[in-house]
């Protein structure tokens, strides 16, 4: 081997065959990806035993991050944390000061962070922001290697080419110690106020990708738009090296996807795209990035991960336990790229946004779930035979509401027509959403595979008495009538091809007087986007199945 082969990856050129650690090489086994070598080299070089110390006249506080956290260093062709003293990961003081300043009143900002005073001159603030270091060396392991896996085009339109995976490096559930000191001695009360401002900044999330759940702590204060108690089970994601990880960015993906589906059902594609970006953020085109209004944070203190084993299959599954999904209002400003002029949100805008976000959460929970395999019901709950008798992989997920305020998000179902009423109301609300009205979009173009338009989607439902009473789940694995089957058809989907049916067992809540009661029964829902293109026999297959639903089964056409 030549000397040059021993050069640390950080100092190699980012070209083919040298150091391209952001690239997931499909021909290479998980933990042999170059990113792991990179992480290993960082680990070896870092002085892991000695946490960088803050000086004694520095006030410090520790905060736990509920999931991942990254502050992009802007080096090496990969998104990775900043490297600070003796190799430790570091949240820079400059970022800390910026985040802090954005949570100050004008007066506080001038006092603490400095700025132009009444005399027109620049004065320094009294605080020094020393940044944050991990509390211990737990972060220095393979968990650093993280995935970015955009698949909006795939999920909404079956566009396989839009799926790609790149690697980034981020800290997994770190505990960071932050340090602040003051030029002047301050009272205990004033320090408390300073830390409160810092907690407000943390509540908005710090670092990159905060709208997808990165850089979030448990509390969010005024940033909270909605607090949704959730409990879910299902199929967990895997890291590149095969280790299980529950990835809260799935919530944003689902909510963003539904937003776009719904918008494409009421306006033209361009307007839908623009408005989705306004709500959830978009990367920059020629006019720069759009800072989204909404973001998510997820905290599941009792999350459990386990392995599902059957036959040749071994896959991780999760049970979140009672958890909290926060929908955050991360931004107070409408973007000029969308509206042609930028303006602050009014109180009415905020109220309207809350209504819209509530509706999207309701819709997401009614029709499907979150995370991997969200289009199918959790087979371990509703079809355990499938997993026991056969040598089959785990499939699906199941989500229900829990905690306080769950009744705000529930769609109560006395009669199946309640769902029709909800879906009608939802479409009207989305179409009439005041900010969308301002954009004056055109008519739906119906080009998106999963656009939520009347002639593009059908919702079928029935009441299932209990968890053993799911009818449709068997149709995905066998014949639904005689020799007729939709198994492994373009309708149900397969590997490399997105299906056109969502299947959901929605817990049935009924109104009893003023109160909502969980009944133990379920509403079995099938959402179908019939194929308009493809081979004639496939289109026929879908038509046959829809006819079957109409005439033979006890499903009702709801929408």
């Amino acid at each position, binding site marked *: 081997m030549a000397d040059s082969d021993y050069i640390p990856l950080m100092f190699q050129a980012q070209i083919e065959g040298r150091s391209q650690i952001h690239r997931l090489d499909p021909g290479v086994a998980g933990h042999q990806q170059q990113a792991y070598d990179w992480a290993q080299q*960082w680990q070896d070089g870092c002085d892991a035993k000695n946490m960088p110390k803050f000086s004694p006249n520095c006030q410090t506080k520790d905060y736990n991050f509920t999931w991942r956290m990254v502050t992009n260093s802007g*080096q090496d062709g990969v998104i990775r944390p900043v490297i600070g003293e003796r190799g430790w990961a570091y949240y820079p003081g400059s970022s800390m000061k910026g985040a802090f300043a954005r949570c100050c009143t004008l007066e506080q900002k001038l006092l603490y962070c*400095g700025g132009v005073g009444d005399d027109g001159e620049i004065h320094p603030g009294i605080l020094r922001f020393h940044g944050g270091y991990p509390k211990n060396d737990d972060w220095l392991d393979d968990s650093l290697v993280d995935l970015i896996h955009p698949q909006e085009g795939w999920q909404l339109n079956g566009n396989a080419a839009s799926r790609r995976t790149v690697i980034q490096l981020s800290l997994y559930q770190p505990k960071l110690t932050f340090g602040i000191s003051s030029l002047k001695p301050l009272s205990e009360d004033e320090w408390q106020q300073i830390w409160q401002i810092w907690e407000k900044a943390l509540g908005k999330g710090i670092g990159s990708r905060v709208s997808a759940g990165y850089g979030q702590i448990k509390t969010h204060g005024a940033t909270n738009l909605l607090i949704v108690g959730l409990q879910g089970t299902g199929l967990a994601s895997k890291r590149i090296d095969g280790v299980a990880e529950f990835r809260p960015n799935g919530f944003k993906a689902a909510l963003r996807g539904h937003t776009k589906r719904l918008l494409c059902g009421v306006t033209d594609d361009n307007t839908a795209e623009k408005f989705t970006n306004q709500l959830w953020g978009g990367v920059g085109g020629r006019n720069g990035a759009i800072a989204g209004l909404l973001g998510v944070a997820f905290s599941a203190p009792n999350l459990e991960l386990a392995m599902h084993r059957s036959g040749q299959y071994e896959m991780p599954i999760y049970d979140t336990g009672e958890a909290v999904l926060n929908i955050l209002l991360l931004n107070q400003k409408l973007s000029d790229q969308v509206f042609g002029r930028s303006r602050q949100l009014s109180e009415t805008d905020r109220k309207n946004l809350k209504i819209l976000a509530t509706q999207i959460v309701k819709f997401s929970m009614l029709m499907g779930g979150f995370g991997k395999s969200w289009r199918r019901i959790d087979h371990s709950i509703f079809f355990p035979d499938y997993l026991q008798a056969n040598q089959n992989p785990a499939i699906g997920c199941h989500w229900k509401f829990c905690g306080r305020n769950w009744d705000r998000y529930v769609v109560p179902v006395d009669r199946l027509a309640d769902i029709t009423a909800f879906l009608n109301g939802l479409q009207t609300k989305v179409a009439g959403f005041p900010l969308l009205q301002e954009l004056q979009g055109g008519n739906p173009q119906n080009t998106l595979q999963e656009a939520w338009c009347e002639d593009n989607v059908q919702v079928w439902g029935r009441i299932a008495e209990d968890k053993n009473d799911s009818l449709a789940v068997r149709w995905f694995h066998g014949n639904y009538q005689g020799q007729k089957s939709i198994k492994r058809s373009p309708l149900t989907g397969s590997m490399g091809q997105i299906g056109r049916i969502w299947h959901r067992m929605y817990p049935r809540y009924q109104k009893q007087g003023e109160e909502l009661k969980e009944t133990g029964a379920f509403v079995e829902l099938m959402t179908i986007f019939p194929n308009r293109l493809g081979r004639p026999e496939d289109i026929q297959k879908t038509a046959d199945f829809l006819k079957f639903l109409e005439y033979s089964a006890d499903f009702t056409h709801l929408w």
Partner: protein
Amino acid sequence: MYRKGYGIIETLAPLHVGATAGEESGNLNPIFRDSFLRTGIIPGSSLRGRFRSQMRLQRQIWLEKALKERKIDTPDSREIKVEGEKEPLTRLHWLQKQATELKIEPDLEIDENFWYGKTAATDASDTTSEAMVKFEYASLLWLPVFCPGQPIVWVSSPKLLKRYQRLAGESVTLKDGKKLKEISGSQIDRLVYSGSQTLKALNVEGKKKLFFNFGFLELAKGMTDLSAWFPLGEELPAVVVADDEIGAIHDMALYRQSRVRLKDDEKRVDGGGFFNTEALPEGTIMVFPVAIRQKAPQHWQPFGKGKQISEIYLGGLESIGFGNCEITLKGM
């Protein structure tokens, strides 16, 4: 004529002493560099300025206390400017004026104008005075280099070691009883490519090597006792490289941030708000000489009586955690 001493600086946070706009204006904010080796320095004027402001604060505190004892009402401590007869005075000037009227004078020990020279009044350029204490620039002695895949290594070069020898040669005694100054120049030159006893180098095909950004450096001279060259006692994992190499290695060790300024009210890049800052990393050891005029009637004790060590802030970007240093004064 002069009593000589020296100071050792250990950086506890990144240290940025440089120009924000100057020979390289724009979005690159480099640190000041030595013109021969291209390694970081702290100009003597920056050191003096910092020491001066430290003492000025001491004097201000003394004046506040003295006036309070005379039951004089002092303005709110938050106020920077105070009402004067004609125009606003700085708080310190106000205090000083009151004190002069009452004929109370602080001890010379805390009079920054005495020790560091009197600054000229705007209308009288001949009111300056010569300083009692003189500083020369601080140069690197040891610079820590972090590189993934190998341990952190402190580097130095013969020229840097020789400067330290010139400043500390009299006061450092080696294990064999000799003084540091007795080490000959050629002996120092021979240290090139030798590592300290605590260094664990990479094993590249049987050879002891270290990676720096120009390639691999072989520790051809093996390991030597370098403890004499560490003024703070601990012999760190270290290597001596040639004078014509340290500049390039120095570039690799600097703490560099490519930064963007975000908008005040939105988490989005403020157009054009892109800039780079470099700083000496934490754990850098620097040395600077101090000369005190023989006629000084008292001891110079900038950190208070009997104190030789103090934490001090140097350079810019203090508010984002830069510049925290520990200074140890020796031979005063």
